[in-house]
């Protein structure tokens, strides 16, 4: 048996599982989204999306919250990844453990942790009020800010690991070369470190964006009823209203938008130069 074939065969168990629990139900849902109450073909579930601006607004909010989450994880994660890139092997291991450790706890529990911290009587508001910095408690929860905080906490690990992996591959002597050629540390960062981290930035941002677009638990717990996003209303349609076709259509609209945006984004960034430099 040739090597290629045997490797392909080894993927078979995973493929079968994927097919059974993922692909097939997806196809069923897709069919469902085109059905009306009498199981006849209809486009009305998708048409509703164009007719009723309510759904478009929710899609836009989902995108907005996801973009803020991408930005927050990127800005917070970058220094951590840079620290990891110059640290010793042992230190890298320790930091990785710290980043991943919170994921051992259910996201529900972690979100409730945030509720305790960010609530009107949470310790952030209590402290700020005791210090006399504010008079009224800040609204940190049950709005988009709360959702972004929760999502950032959930997904920052993916961003850091994607960035760090990319930075490990950068030869440390490149910064030295830039420095001796006359570049200050800031200049070196923007002309050498940042451009060479681009593959990690693309990986991290698309990953966090996709995860945020489809996140359900955090928006439900930390956004409450006022910050509904696409996964939440799809869930409501299916579980509360029992309107499965509409729920399915909303889910596919979300999937389609995510794929479209991610594709556009990568097409935009992966220029000819990018491909020449980073293609293996």
């Amino acid at each position, binding site marked *: 048996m040739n090597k290629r074939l045997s490797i392909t065969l080894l993927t078979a168990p995973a493929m079968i599982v994927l097919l059974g629990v993922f692909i097939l139900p997806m196809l069923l849902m897709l069919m469902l989204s085109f059905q009306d109450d009498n199981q006849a073909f209809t486009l009305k579930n998708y048409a509703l999306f164009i007719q009723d601006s309510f759904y478009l607004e929710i899609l836009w909010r989902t995108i907005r919250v996801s973009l803020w989450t991408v930005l927050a994880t990127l800005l917070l994660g970058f220094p951590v990844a840079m620290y990891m890139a110059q640290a010793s092997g042992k230190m890298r291991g320790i930091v990785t453990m710290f980043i991943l450790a919170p994921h051992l706890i259910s996201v529900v529990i972690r979100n409730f942790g945030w509720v305790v911290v960010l609530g009107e009587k949470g310790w952030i508001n209590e402290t700020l009020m005791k210090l006399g910095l504010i008079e009224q408690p800040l609204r940190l929860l049950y709005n988009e800010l709360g959702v972004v905080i929760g999502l950032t906490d959930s997904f920052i690990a993916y961003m850091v690991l994607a960035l760090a992996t990319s930075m490990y591959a950068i030869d440390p*002597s490149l910064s030295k*070369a*830039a*420095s001796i*050629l*006359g*570049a*200050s540390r800031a200049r070196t960062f923007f002309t050498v470190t940042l451009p060479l981290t681009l593959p990690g930035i693309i990986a991290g941002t698309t990953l966090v964006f996709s995860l945020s677009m489809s996140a359900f638990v955090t928006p439900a717990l930390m956004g409450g009823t006022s910050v509904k996003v696409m996964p939440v209303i799809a869930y409501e349609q299916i579980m509360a209203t029992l309107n499965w076709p509409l729920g399915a259509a909303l889910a596919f609209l979300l999937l389609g938008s995510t794929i479209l945006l991610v594709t556009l984004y990568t097409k935009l960034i992966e220029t000819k130069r990018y491909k020449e430099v980073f293609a293996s």
Partner: protein
Amino acid sequence: MSKVIDVELRGIIKKFQNNVVVQDFNLQVEQGEFIAFLGPSGCGKTTTLNMIAGFLDPDGGDLLIKGQRMNGVPPYKRELGMVFQTYSLFPHMTVAENIAYGLKLRKVGKQEMQERVKRVLELVKLPNVADRYPKQLSGGQRQRIAIARALVIEPSLLLLDEPLSNLDAKLREELRDELKRLHQEIGVTTIFVTHDQEEALALSDRIVVLNHGFVEQIGTPLEIYNQPASEFVHTFIGKTNRMEGEVIAIDADGIKVRTTGGLLIQAAKQAREFSLQQKVIVFVRPEKIKLSDTGVHTGANQVEGHLQLASFLGSYTECEVVAGKHTLSVKVQMSDKSAEREAGTTVYCNWDAEDVLIMPAERG
């Protein structure tokens, strides 16, 4: 005209934790000089170079470049050129962009920048690669571009950290000659780090031999070769035969030594002073020993022995001759008929008194 000193190291010391890596390094580099730091792995060559470049700060002593104290000045303010062992070209920039990097930071105008990039590419004999990315170049080409990038800013000093060690033997020799030509053409003061004595001998005006962070000797290649300051310098600079013995006579012509193996050795006058009965070490380089089938004379500097082990190395053959307690290594040129002798043959080794180096034994 008085000499201009470009770089001066005054009692430079560097420690890592409690480990002293560079110890009391003193050196003056003249303008236009080509200096090699030569020494075994881990002797502190890169550390010293990094201190000159500004990547490390000395723990003691002063570093002066063009007469100005540089301790604590960051690398990007030192106006130096440096070529790294791993080339360190920016992979996301084309060759032209790599070379222009330092010029851009110096706000050189576009027109002038293009001209200077073009000129330096011609200087390193690669005029047609400007638009390629580093990974589309061979190792030797990358090294040349790295040199071009360092030179284009017209640095006051060029630092090279083992720039040839990642190349194969043939290319290394080629680029070595190229470096020599470049230096003669532009005359930039250069410090070159290497652990290859041939490279150091071939390129440098002066060599600094380092051992465990100590400067063993500073001198021209001829001085280092002919008048080594220590056994370490002599043995590091090339293969040699070492015999222990005792001084038995000193006269106007030189020194006579009897080795522990009973050989009588006549050496020409030495730079050092010796006394009768002093324990000494005698060195004779393999390439200075001549082989013959019959003895030349019966006095000193002759050994009868058996030819053992001959390795053919192209232009010469390396043989070992076993003579009683001593085993001598001998280099025979191909032009010499004796290169065709078979193992086991009885041969005579001879050498001249001028080719004998004697050092006192108590050191080390």
